[in-house]
């Protein structure tokens, strides 16, 4: 992977993609008729939410893989997805209220969608806190994997919340059935932004995996140094 698509090239592609995506938000996508300019938050809020959900799905896969095979690579994969996913989920919780205030007149309400997204953010926090506070790395990996698997229940319920229950959060405009939908240019802006966010997410995960490899190398060298002192 590193030879075919080196990290520097990945960073350049991500940067260019994000610049194009930003151009589409501000200069290509049409202005929404009822909300006006503030609706453009949609193009960063929704892709952040989808990326956070993809991240939790990757945590789930990595956690299942780790509990099944006990391979460090699966654990690193889940941990990397958790760190990057936490960043995107935080973006959802920051951009959402900034869109809600001018449109609904309130920053926040405890409806099903908002509450379940907040629970998703807490699950990312719980996963990362477990990694930080449990001293034994093997035990931390197992406990985090359990959180990663059980917590995944939140993702489909969060996604379906606006379809199952009446919420303050708007009903789905994407895959929402009859009467829902987007202007073709809005679709382009949305999908290009989501692609850019996924590219950034993949880059952040790669950086985490490099960090994890460094941590293992340092731990190995420390053990060797300890052994040298002992003899």
């Amino acid at each position, binding site marked *: 992977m590193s030879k075919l698509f080196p990290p520097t090239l990945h960073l350049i592609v991500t940067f260019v993609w994000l610049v194009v995506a930003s151009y589409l938000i501000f200069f290509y996508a049409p202005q929404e008729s009822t909300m006006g300019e503030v609706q453009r938050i949609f193009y960063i809020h929704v892709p952040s939410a989808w990326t956070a959900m993809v991240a939790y799905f990757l945590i789930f896969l990595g956690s299942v893989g780790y509990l099944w095979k006990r391979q460090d690579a699966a654990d690193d994969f889940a941990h990397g997805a958790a760190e990057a996913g936490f960043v995107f989920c935080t*973006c959802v919780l*920051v*951009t959402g209220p900034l869109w809600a205030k001018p449109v609904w007149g309130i920053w926040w309400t405890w409806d099903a969608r908002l509450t379940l997204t907040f629970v998703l953010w807490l699950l990312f926090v719980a996963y990362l806190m477990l990694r930080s506070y449990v001293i034994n790395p093997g035990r931390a990996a197992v406990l985090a994997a359990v959180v990663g698997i059980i917590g995944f229940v939140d993702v489909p319920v969060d996604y379906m919340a606006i379809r199952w229950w009446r919420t303050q959060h708007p009903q789905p405009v994407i895959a929402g059935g009859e009467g829902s939908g987007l202007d073709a240019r809005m679709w382009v802006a949305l999908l290009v932004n989501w692609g850019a966010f996924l590219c950034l997410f993949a880059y952040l995960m790669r*950086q985490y995996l490099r960090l994890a490899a460094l941590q293992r190398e*340092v731990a190995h060298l420390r053990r060797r*140094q300890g052994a040298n002192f002992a003899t």
Partner: protein
Amino acid sequence: MCNVYLVLAYGLLWGIFAIYAWVIHGRQQRLEKEMQELKRALGQR
């Protein structure tokens, strides 16, 4: 184009990404430095 909520949302989004990138870069730098020191102590190149 100059909606304050839009500018704030967009700015905070990039602020959050930048903070995480800075944090992970710092962690990598510290580990690389520690690795070099350990290698030196162990007599490796």
